[in-house]
């Protein structure tokens, strides 16, 4: 085999494309292979009902890191940010809350909570630079600390120390806390606490009372920017254009069946159909469990690494429901207004109970919903006047007792509908089409271990060491094999940071 490519990137999701683009310089020949027929992975929009498209399985574009956007030069490829929109937190028999980016613009807060919210956001603003600093740099290898790591650990410490002793103590105190306890220290309103806690538990195996969930809250809060205009598909479009402009070759519809390993080195990849592509380097944006356990010959995998991967937790707990709607539903808390984002859960205990079900391998009787209506910003996603709802449903465990049968899927849909109907009575009459993606469906369609949207749970231990001690800095024990997906630091979501940081690591390894 002659090497036609310097590096092959597996997976054309947001991280794979980011890594490929950043690697395609100095004449490096980069190929991206994608098993699905479209690029974008979890960020890709798709038609789920004739005439209706959703805007990505992952659709929170506020997480996209600005420095990655700069490195990729995405503004030259059409990426625009836009104003964040208001979030409706509906309430049974009440007006609920409307949360805007500013406390002033928010509605329904008590005077006390409004004041606390200002203090809360000020604290987040103070810790954000230090915290984001940890996440925007390569992981500090706590396990195998070299001189460079020590230096960076020291610098990270200094940056954090710049917070001042008081804030630093507070930071160290709150990171491992249960999100419920921390929010409980700030706020009185159940509705507000539940609304803020939601993102900390989506896709986790945790309820708001689980320690460590606060880290997830800080994660998203400390990195929140303005959303990308046009949503995830626009982001993917921009990165794809950047990639092609740099000469990256992208092949879709080709699945990698195995990696060719010789003497502990990557030599190439084998594609479905038997075609072999020779290359000295492979960057995999697929999930690490699948990469190592499915694409590598078992004997090539060190015993300790295999054990680590097998215990890397990827219990998917979220389902996705897409609805095609003939109109925008009326939320009785705030009738007559259009919200792009609606989040259910009226109290922390409701979230906690929703999680309880997952422990017993059941889906929540009353699931917690994070709903987006991308068709408000992008009317082309649906026919005129029609709308699309994209709903992240918590909790629906991959390991469902009895399995994800057709009736289980229907049961989940009914449970989602019951919650929707409570806040937007009569919504069922608007539904002209739907798609219910259980974790089992997500696992199959997007090749995710146990349907986990982040390629691995966001729990403190798996954020500090991601995915395993041997692979926590993108390189792996196999020469020429790198990780560049959500299974690596700093984790899942539409940040594009793993891809960009992996590209840095690969470049500095001087392929």
């Amino acid at each position, binding site marked *: 085999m002659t090497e036609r490519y310097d590096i092959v990137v597996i997976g054309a999701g947001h991280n794979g494309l980011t890594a490929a683009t950043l690697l395609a310089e100095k004449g490096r020949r980069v190929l991206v292979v994608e098993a699905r027929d479209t690029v974008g992975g979890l960020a890709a929009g798709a038609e789920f009902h004739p005439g209706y498209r959703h805007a990505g399985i992952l659709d929170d574009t506020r997480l996209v890191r600005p420095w990655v956007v700069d490195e990729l030069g995405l503004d030259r490829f059409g990426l625009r940010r836009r104003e964040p929109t208001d979030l409706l937190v509906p309430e049974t028999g009440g007006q609920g809350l409307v949360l805007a980016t500013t406390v002033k613009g928010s509605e329904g807060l008590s005077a006390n909570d409004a004041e606390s919210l200002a203090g809360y956001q000020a604290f987040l603003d103070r810790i954000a630079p230090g915290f984001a600093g940890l996440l925007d740099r390569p992981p500090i290898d*706590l*396990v*195998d*600390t070299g001189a460079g790591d020590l230096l960076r650990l020291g610098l990270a410490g200094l940056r954090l*120390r710049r917070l001042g*002793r008081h804030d*630093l*103590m*507070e930071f*160290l*105190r*709150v990171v*491992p*806390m249960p999100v419920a*306890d921390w929010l409980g*220290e700030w706020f009185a309103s159940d509705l507000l606490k539940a609304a803020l806690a939601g993102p900390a538990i989506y896709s986790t*195996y*945790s309820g708001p*009372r*689980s*320690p*460590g969930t606060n880290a997830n809250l800080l994660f998203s809060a400390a990195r929140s920017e303005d959303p990308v205009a046009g949503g995830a598909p626009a982001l993917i479009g921009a990165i794809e254009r950047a990639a092609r402009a740099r000469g990256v070759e992208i092949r879709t519809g080709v699945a990698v069946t195995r990696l060719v390993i010789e003497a502990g080195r990557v030599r190439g990849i084998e594609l479905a159909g038997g075609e072999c592509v020779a290359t000295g380097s492979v960057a995999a944006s697929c999930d690490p469990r699948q990469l190592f356990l499915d694409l590598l010959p078992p004997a090539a995998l060190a015993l*300790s690494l295999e054990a680590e991967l097998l*215990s890397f*937790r990827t219990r998917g707990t979220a389902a996705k429901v897409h609805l095609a709607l003939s109109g925008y539903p009326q939320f009785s808390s705030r009738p007559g207004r259009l919200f792009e984002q609606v989040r259910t859960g009226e109290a922390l*205990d409701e979230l*906690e*109970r929703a999680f*309880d079900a997952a*422990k*017993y391998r059941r889906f929540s009787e009353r699931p917690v919903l994070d709903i987006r209506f991308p068709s408000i910003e992008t009317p082309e996603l649906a026919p005129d006047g029609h709308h699309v709802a994209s709903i992240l449903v918590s909790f629906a465990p991959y390991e469902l007792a009895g399995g994800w049968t057709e009736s289980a899927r229907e049961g989940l849909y009914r449970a989602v509908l019951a919650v929707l109907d409570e806040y937007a009575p009569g919504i069922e009459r608007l539904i002209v089409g739907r798609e219910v993606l259980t974790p089992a469906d997500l696992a199959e369609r997007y090749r995710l271990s146990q349907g986990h949207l982040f390629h691995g749970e966001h*729990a*403190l*231990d798996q954020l*500090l*060491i991601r995915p395993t*001690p041997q692979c926590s800095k993108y390189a792996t024990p196999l020469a020429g094999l790198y990780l560049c997906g959500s299974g690596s630091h700093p984790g899942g979501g539409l940040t594009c940071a793993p891809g960009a940081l992996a590209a840095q690591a690969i470049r500095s390894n001087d392929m």
Partner: protein
Amino acid sequence: MTAIRKSGRYDAVIVGGGHNGLVCAAYLARAGRKVLVLERRHVLGGAAVTEELYPGFQFSVCSYVVSLFRPSIIRELELARHGLEIIPLETAFTPRLGDRGLCRWSDPARTRREISRFSPRDAEIHPEFSLAMTKMARYVRNLIDSPAPDPTSWNPVELWRLLRLGRELQRQGSDGVAMHLRLLTMSAVDFLDRWFESEVLKAPMSVSGIIGTFLGVRSPGTAYVLLHHYMGEIDGAFRSWGYSKGGTGGVSLACARAAESFGAEIRTESAVERIRVAAGRATGVVLANGDEIEAGTIVSSCDPRLTFLGLVGSKHLDGDFVRQIERYKLRGSSGKVNLAVDRLPRFPGREGSDFLRGDIAIAPGIDYLERAYDQAKYGEFSERPYINAVIPSIMDPSVAPPGQHVISMFVQYAPYDIKEGADNWPAKREAFGDAVVDTLAEYCPGLKESILYRQVLTPWDMEQEFGLSEGNIFHGELSLEQLLFQRPAAGWARYRTPIRNLWMCGSGTHPGGGLMGAPGQLAAQAMLNSNGKPSSG
């Protein structure tokens, strides 16, 4: 030690005659200080107390096993000479319905055979697991036996200590570092899942992570306590878990005798009403009967909330500190049920009492434990709780009449904040007691008929009777944000308080609760080493 000045009759007055107060008193007295211990109740020991609640039966009312009592304290205070006798636990039995259950023995070969009935794989891995945990425990012991390191301090001594702890950690190799991070952050179940397959083994192992916390076995952060079981092996105290002969009060009494032998004075039925503070300094205590006692130093072994919000009063403290103490989580989650029975309990499938020479865990599965927790989360006691029962009279017949027995049951979950409100616990007390007895009786037919006497302690009772705020047996949750340099409050983890001359020495300080004695010992050392500066630690 200039901090304890010779003013008034006493150098130091210690509020509370629990084991930590007494240990602290003994160390201070040993160093030549004039010490007075004041205990509110008629007996010494606080939660480490023995009482004859029913004629002929000696009950370890609250704390019922000696776990990590520091061997250095036993040596330095010569507690063996002062009457301390510890009888090591030999077994850990987990009954199961319709089965002989699992008994883990002090003989590893026997344990392996028991485990292999449920999983040969787990039996094979068990020694590997123990070895790995022993490695970890060696490191953790450093943290328990010294004051908490402070990562926010610029003090070169602190930085050096941190560096050394870091280095030592690295010496354990990459696996060791990874394992520490995981132990700190993972749930007990997730951590055990990395090793074992059988719930019969995992469930009783996982519960050590939840004792005294308001967490479930699947809650992150509960893995670390798994290590405690392995600490004894390296402590020099062969098998750390044991009964104190005659009841747990024996530990406290030995500490008291040691303190007295060094000249400390101890008074019972002397409730401290408040700590007198003037111009930011503690000057003495005021007793419930109106007596005032002056001392150069006041040491509180009570929990932080009782100490600062009760005995001191928030008006003497700055608002930020008060806020820290107010948000300090105490949330008691456990109760005690003590029984006097006229015969030995019988567990179908097993003969004799060999397998009862240790503790009995009602922990038949992970889901069972989680369900117990779920009820507590929403303000109910667990109908089918986790129970840790011991029958100390098997190995120590002195605590019950011949042929009769004492059963001491630690029960979780019994949340302090039941949904009816904590004050309504008295109305639910017996229902709770029934649930506990019913649960044990499922595994132990005939239990109910054998009961001569029953004592039920709810968290509310523990608050009333023993002064444990919210009935928290550890003076505050052992959650990550309340450990080490943050126990009980950030910047106040070195036994000092914002009030000059007022110190803390109870379980609400590093390294936390349990019958360890370490806080009392470390607090005394800190006082003796202090140069009198009232700055934060």
